[in-house]
């Protein structure tokens, strides 16, 4: 048997289903007597709700907050000191705090009829001043989104290192203000749920597109005040998540409440407008940074103030503290910074809640840090990679604790960067820039290098105990392997990579393994798919379960071969002794169906195991990556074409390099979206302005360069096989690399753009401004 284990470029087992149209998403499910729900949502950003008028003839089909008996508000509370707690009612009461907030649930045979009913509901309100800008929101006198807050701030946090002494005599000082736009996580499949009540088991069954079925069950149990035993959450195939499906929100709570009472299945399918404008956005950050350096660009001190627009409510379970607390901890990135200060605020605004999108705060901090590095390089007249090399943590320093106590387990950041610079062809690009283009476009080269803490415990600082991960594995009576994991696949290929790990441990052909995911009734508890944790945690737990299974298989096999267990090997679908072998099917048949063939002292624990795992450091592992790109900027239209794109990635030992490449390609596409296309603008009244995909631009295949991916494989000392998390990484680097490339291209015009996305309008505006200033 050719290896199908660690490192095999195995084709994805799940793709046969997906590519042949047998995937099963929420909208594919059909239940007898199922009815549809549509929601009445707030048309305004901030108002006092004074009344809801419902015509008598539809009153029985409309549900408002006062109908929702026994349901509590959503409270997503960070344990960090000073965190202000928002109460998010599943249906609005008292105040409306963002456009799209749920007000009423309307029920009908079809979605169209439910929308007809929704159109008959009149919402009465007194408008209040909308809090839209996260800087103005913090000023004294700003209207309060939550009346019981002192200020529009969920949390202020930071790292308060002394910087004055280091900054005082620094010969180089660079100050910038940087912004990243509010974005929308855009899986192809929007959110969606079907709720029904099993009257025999007295159990609520919720089918939902989610990244973490077990967490949804826990959240629902709290809000509905229903024991977890009475809730089953099933998530079959999920059409992309990216963080958008890592939430427990009002829609599924309302549906569950309704299903417990109405006697038939009820369904809500989010439409694209709801996804864009109503439920959750991401990534809106503001930075004011001063960096201090010596003449060679060696950083002496770094002083930052950051704000995250957290929207109106703290989303469950990750809370509105997650991004600001990560910003101050990870802004130093892969650099050795001797003096550092960062203050961050999670700001409350009249926008829908903010969720952590692929990479969480890292795409933003990487953007901020890497633009600062390029600004320093320009100021001192050095190549950007030289300034980076002067500051990167080196391989000989590993393991390394940085200034914010981030523990880098392994890796070679300078080598990642040098490889990226070599593969992008720095010297050739500089020569081409000198020659100029026949079409008049300007060429620019940009890069970014970053460190990504992956697979950490429930808190990134590792101080609070993490959730362990468990995986169940069982050899069936016909000798196949049934693996069940509580983590969910949202496209990462876990049905394949977990099977590869199982195959590595038991030597069974992956074709004989089935990995089942996404059902709280069938799998051990898991906190789900987030934080690039799957391959480390669920992969580790799969290995633990399967290694234990392998030892039990070995014992039975040795008994059948009448030899000592120490003399047998479990491999190639069986147990091999000095003078013969038995197959897994033989062993399973003997154990389950012909136990009398076995000696009496066989371990009665049998051929099923739940294995548990946590990496040996709960702060996780650090994946490293460098991105480099060449762009051509049309200074007349503001158009940007990406001519070349290189990613060098070190995610430790790769379980399936082909799947990793796919992850990087997809993440890079989303990062290019952040760099050039994606933006959810709001008007002064807090109205979201991009309500269709004609307005909210996502990069398409025509906009994607042929991304060239290179790997280093530095094993992590802390994980089962030396693997590190990699699912999010591709999305982190492009914002910085592309922005630096555009600024490199426009340098001769005196233009530097400190805001993404870099749209044609922003480029032309900046060029016009530079011309006026000149």
């Amino acid at each position, binding site marked *: 048997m050719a290896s199908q284990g660690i490192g095999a470029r195995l084709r994805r087992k799940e793709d046969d289903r997906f590519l042949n149209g047998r995937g099963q998403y929420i909208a594919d499910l059909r239940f007898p007597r199922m009815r549809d729900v549509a929601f009445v949502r707030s048309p305004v950003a901030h108002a006092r709700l004074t009344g809801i008028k419902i015509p008598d003839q539809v009153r029985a089909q409309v549900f408002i907050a006062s109908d929702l008996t026994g349901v509590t508000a959503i409270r997503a509370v960070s344990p960090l000191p000073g965190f202000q707690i928002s109460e998010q009612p599943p249906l609005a009461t008292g105040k409306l705090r963002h456009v799209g907030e749920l007000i009423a649930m309307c029920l009908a045979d*079809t*979605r*169209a009829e439910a*929308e*007809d009913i929704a*159109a008959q509901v009149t919402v009465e309100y007194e408008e209040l001043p909308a809090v839209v800008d996260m800087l103005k929101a913090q000023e004294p006198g700003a209207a309060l989104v939550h009346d019981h807050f002192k200020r529009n701030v969920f949390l202020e946090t930071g790292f308060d290192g002394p910087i004055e002494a280091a900054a005082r005599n620094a010969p180089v000082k660079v100050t910038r203000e940087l912004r990243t736009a509010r974005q929308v996580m855009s899986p192809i499949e929007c959110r969606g749920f079907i709720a029904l009540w099993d009257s025999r088991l007295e159990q609520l069954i919720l089918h939902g597109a989610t990244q973490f079925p077990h967490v949804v069950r826990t959240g629902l149990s709290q809000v509905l005040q229903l024991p977890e035993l009475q809730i089953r959450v099933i998530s079959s195939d999920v059409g992309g998540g990216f963080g958008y499906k890592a939430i427990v929100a009002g829609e599924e709570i309302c549906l569950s409440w309704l299903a417990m009472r109405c006697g038939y299945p009820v369904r809500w399918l989010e*439409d694209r*407008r709801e996804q864009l404008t109503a439920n959750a956005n991401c990534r809106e950050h503001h930075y004011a940074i001063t960096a201090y350096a010596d003449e060679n660009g060696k950083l002496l001190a770094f002083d930052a103030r950051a704000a995250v627009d957290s929207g109106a409510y703290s989303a469950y379970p990750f809370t509105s503290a997650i991004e600001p607390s990560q910003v101050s901890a990870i802004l130093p990135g892969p650099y050795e910074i001797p003096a550092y200060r960062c203050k961050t605020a999670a700001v409350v605004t009249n926008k829908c809640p903010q969720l952590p999108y692929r990479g969480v705060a890292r795409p933003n901090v990487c953007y901020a840090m890497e633009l600062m590095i390029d600004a320093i390089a320009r100021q001192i007249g050095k190549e950007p990679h030289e300034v980076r090399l002067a500051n990167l943590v080196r391989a000989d320093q590993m393991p390394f604790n940085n200034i914010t106590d981030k523990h880098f387990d392994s890796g070679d950041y300078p080598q990642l960067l040098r490889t990226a610079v070599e593969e992008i062809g720095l010297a050739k690009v500089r020569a081409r820039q000198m020659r100029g283009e026949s079409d008049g476009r300007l060429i620019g080269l940009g890069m970014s290098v970053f460190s990504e803490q992956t697979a950490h415990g429930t808190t990134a600082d590792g101080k609070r105990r993490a959730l362990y991960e468990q995986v169940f594995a069982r050899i069936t009576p016909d000798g196949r392997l049934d693996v069940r994991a509580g983590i969910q696949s949202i496209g990462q290929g876990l049905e394949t990579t977990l099977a590869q790990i199982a195959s590595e441990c038991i030597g069974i052909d992956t074709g004989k393994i089935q990995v089942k995911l996404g059902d709280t009734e069938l799998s051990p508890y898991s906190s789900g798919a987030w934080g690039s944790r799957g391959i480390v945690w669920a992969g580790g737990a799969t290995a633990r379960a399967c290694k234990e299974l392998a030892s039990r298989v070995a014992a039975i096999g040795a008994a059948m071969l009448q030899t000592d267990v120490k003399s047998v090997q479990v491999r190639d679908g069986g147990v091999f002794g000095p003078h013969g072998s038995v197959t897994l099917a033989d062993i399973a048949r003997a154990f389950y169906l012909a136990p009398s063939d076995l000696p009496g002292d066989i371990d009665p624990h049998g051929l099923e195991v739940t294995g548990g795992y946590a990496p040996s450091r709960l702060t996780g592992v650090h994946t490293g990556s460098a991105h480099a790109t060449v762009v051509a900027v049309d200074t*007349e*239209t503001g*158009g940007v074409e990406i001519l070349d794109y290189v990613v060098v990635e070190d995610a430790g030992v790769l379980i399936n390099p082909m799947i990793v490449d796919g992850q990087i390609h997809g993440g890079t596409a989303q990062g290019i979206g952040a760099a*050039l*296309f994606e933006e959810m603008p709001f008007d002064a009244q807090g109205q979201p302005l991009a*309500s*269709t995909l*004609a307005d909210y*631009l996502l*990069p*398409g295949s*025509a*906009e994607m360069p042929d991304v060239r991916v290179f790997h280093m494989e530095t094993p992590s000392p802390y994980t089962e096989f030396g693997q590190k998390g990699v699912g999010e990484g591709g999305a982190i680097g492009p914002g910085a690399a592309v922005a630096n490339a555009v600024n490199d291209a426009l340098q001769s015009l005196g233009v530097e753009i400190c805001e993404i996305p870099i*749209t*044609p*309008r922003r480029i*032309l*505006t900046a060029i*016009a401004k530079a011309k006026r200033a000149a």
Partner: protein
Amino acid sequence: MKPVAFDYERAASLSDAASLLARTGGFVKLLAGGQSLGPMLNLRLAQPDLLIDITSIPELTAIIDGGDHLEIGACVTHSDIEDGRVPDHFGGLLRQVAGRIAYRPVRNRGTVGGSLAHADPAADWISALSLIGADAVLWSQRGVRTVAVENLVVSSFTTALAADELIRGVRIPKLSPAARWGFFKFSQKAGEFAHTIGGVLHDPARGVFRAVLGAIETAPIVLADARPLFGGSAFDSGIANRIDREAIARLLDGKNVTDDYIRSLAPVALKRAAIQASAS
């Protein structure tokens, strides 16, 4: 979002469509390719009582060679033109334009007449057919009239169509072999509506030198005599270097175009169209 309930009728003939259009008591919309109307229905921006599907009316998919012009039915699709099922008497101009509209699935269903009737200022046909000097053939039970495409589009999403009229087709003048044209459209991503459109057409055999500036948030600026855009100059190989930015600025002033982005793109679009026209 799902549409409001509406009646749906498929008209078998022009007179059939006319009697449906005349049906009183409600808001009636014609459905051709549905590529703009469909999303508007789903978003409930359009809430018609009656939708009349006109795609199976034979006259609306007919292609008639009129000697010096080609008349194509209103329900001819963009891909019919892109793929050459409509004879190319236009030196490739219409095929280039058609092939760059939105995405292929949109081009498979979207129609020329539907695009004109919808009159999105950033759409391609209102600019391209104005550039070439096409006439829209409007039909009602009162009779047939022709209106130049540049006069059909009054402003953003507004046309000169009467309530009982439909676009039967478009009469497009054939270009002579000596004709030269350029058509430039800038979008940030493939398939997106245009940020700017510029077009130049020179057909000396027919005494034509026309230009268009489109995607300006209102009806395009169409010049039947393009010389004022080029400092009064006639068409020649150096025409792209003689663009009169102030003349363009005045035309944009006349249309109340105040957005600096659009104003800065317009001369670029015209220049690039002129380069294409003069290079060929």
